[in-house]
């Protein structure tokens, strides 16, 4: 599968990702540094003290010098600077650690979204125009009409509050991050809240694409060969129905990343999203730049992954 052409394609894309990261971080850097007022103002420093702090961050230099320092720091030393609020805290290791947490929750959400979404989509397609189909189609509109924080709210109400109250505290799900994996309150609930709206979209898309595929001649051929219906659906239909579903994986990854900003706050997950919301409210602009840079890289890599997935699923595509 990994031909020379594919390798060349991957390396080209990696170069492109580097440029995207550069462009995004530059845009955010320059946009933000035009602004008056940042976290430092909250400290009400004056005179020499203030000058010292400015010097500490290199903010006393001309904008162009600041920019080149930022770029050389980022590309040569992997250094994204220091937090304005928590002096001495280096941003690069911070956002890297947070990115792994976010990626972990996001991956669960992605698995959930695709798994549930495709399953329901296939069921709706196979049972087209029955009550199952109508119920699923209507629920899917409800699904993507619910903001993820509303879903999170109802999950909390049920799993934490209601269960706690009805069992007198003997059984409920602990919400909050402990770093131990697989706890339901810790990963599955946030993943569900993150993924549910997108699962609805995946279900709709899978249904439409399955309906398209099961009318194809090769499905008839498969039946004429005497294959079992489950084999036809999974090996012949679903494989082809996947191709259009892969197209929305890109937007889906972006959606899960942005959704994390809210969901990580609600579930107390120390990820990139929570950091982003906090730092933007605190006007800790160095972190905002760092998080955006991280996001640009993550999205670029995710999109590359999606494009490579095409090759795996559809043998007609070669790079």
């Amino acid at each position: 599968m990994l031909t020379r052409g594919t390798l060349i394609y991957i390396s080209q894309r990696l170069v492109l990702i580097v440029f995207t990261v550069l462009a995004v971080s530059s845009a955010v850097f320059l946009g933000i540094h035009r602004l008056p007022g940042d976290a430092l103002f909250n400290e009400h420093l004056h005179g020499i003290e203030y000058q010292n702090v400015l010097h500490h961050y290199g903010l006393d230099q001309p904008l162009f010098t600041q920019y080149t320092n930022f770029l050389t720091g980022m590309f040569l030393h992997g250094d994204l600077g220091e937090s304005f609020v928590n002096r001495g805290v280096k941003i690069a290791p911070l956002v890297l650690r947070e990115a792994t947490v976010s990626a972990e929750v996001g991956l669960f959400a992605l698995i959930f979204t695709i798994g549930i979404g495709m399953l329901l989509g296939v069921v709706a397609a196979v049972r087209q125009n029955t009550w199952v189909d109508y119920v699923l189609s209507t629920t899917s509109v409800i699904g993507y009409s619910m903001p993820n924080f509303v879903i999170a709210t109802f999950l909390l109400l049920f799993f934490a509050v209601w269960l706690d109250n009805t069992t007198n505290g003997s059984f409920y799900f602990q919400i909050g991050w402990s770093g131990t994996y697989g706890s339901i309150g810790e990963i599955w609930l946030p993943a569900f809240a993150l993924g549910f709206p997108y699962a609805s979209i995946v279900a709709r898309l899978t249904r439409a694409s399955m309906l398209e595929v099961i009318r194809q001649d090769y499905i008839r051929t498969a039946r004429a060969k005497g294959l079992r219906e489950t084999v036809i659906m999974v090996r012949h239909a679903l494989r082809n129905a996947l191709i259009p579903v892969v197209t929305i994986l890109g937007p889906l990854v972006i959606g899960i990343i942005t959704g994390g900003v809210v969901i990580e706050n609600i579930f107390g997950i120390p990820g990139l999203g929570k950091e982003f919301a906090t730092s933007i409210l605190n006007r800790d602009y160095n972190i905002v730049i760092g998080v955006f840079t991280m996001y640009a890289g993550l999205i670029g890599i995710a999109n590359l992954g999606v494009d490579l997935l095409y090759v795996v699923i559809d043998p007609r595509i070669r790079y």
Partner: protein
Amino acid sequence: MGCATRSTRARVAREKSLPTPILQVRDLRTQFATDGGTVTAVDGVSFDLYPGESLGIVGESGSGKSMTALSILRLVPDPGRIVGGQVLFHDQDLLQLTGEEIREIRGRDIAMIFQDPQSSLNPVLRTGFQVDEAMLAHGKSKGEARARTVELLKKVRIPAAESRYKDFPHQLSGGMRQRAMIAMGLSNAPSILIADEPTTALDVTVQAQILELLADLNRELGTAIVMITHNMGVVAGLCERVLVMYAGEIVEQGPVEQIFENPQHPYTWSLLKSIPRVDALRHERLRSIEGLAPDLLHPPLGCRFHPRCPFRIEKCFHDHPHLEHVAAGQQAACWVTMERARKEMGADQLIDIRPGAASGVHPGELL
């Protein structure tokens, strides 16, 4: 009812000298529920297929020939339904089998190949594997299937079969894809192979090769072939017997040579007129059939061909003809038949083939 008497009569008229049929289709009816009403795509079709023979089913598109073939294996697409009749395979009615039982018949005893090899092969699976699958579904092991696939690909004359095994369908040419389809169809050594317009999507030289291949396989393996086509030339090249379908019904059937020499139904006659023949007189024009294929939502009363028939008589407008014995092994559903048309209406010299032109019968119709 009416249909029952017709099939009984058809059976009585059938030739008795042949061996036991391997497949007996009796009064098959397939309908499609559409927005505008019910379309009867296959309307009381009955025929026999004998072991090792090659039978052609010809007709225009929409004549119900493909639907007849798909109905035999119960592969009619939605919203189609088989609403009546029997399909007896070794005295077992395929229409009464459970889903699992018919699945076992498909591909093992009766195989089917389709018109467009481009769309009939799954684009995301390797060609060889798709041939394997037909055998895996019927109890062969992976190793056995694979070995036999390579052998089959060689048999259908695909060059470099071992390496082609691994190719995806889009990497093969149209002719090779159809050969692979045929290999797939033959993989379980079925007693019947139904070929639905297998050469239509291919270019002319490849068409000839595929037909030759099918003829060889029919001869060597003794597989009975049902050839669905709109092309009389294909029938002439491959088949021993032919059924002519029009508007969901069989209008004529019999041995190929006999029907080519002496067609009795005006529709068959015009189909044969429409193919160029090397032995044709120089002045004889190449003619297509006048008029449009019938609207199956509202099929014409009487004989369904009467709106297009140059030889129609009054009776054709209200009485539905049934298959009648017209010559040895030959039946036609026509009130006039070409024999009479030749004698009384000068069919052989006919130049104007518009509806009613030869008989002069145009009751209440605008020309």
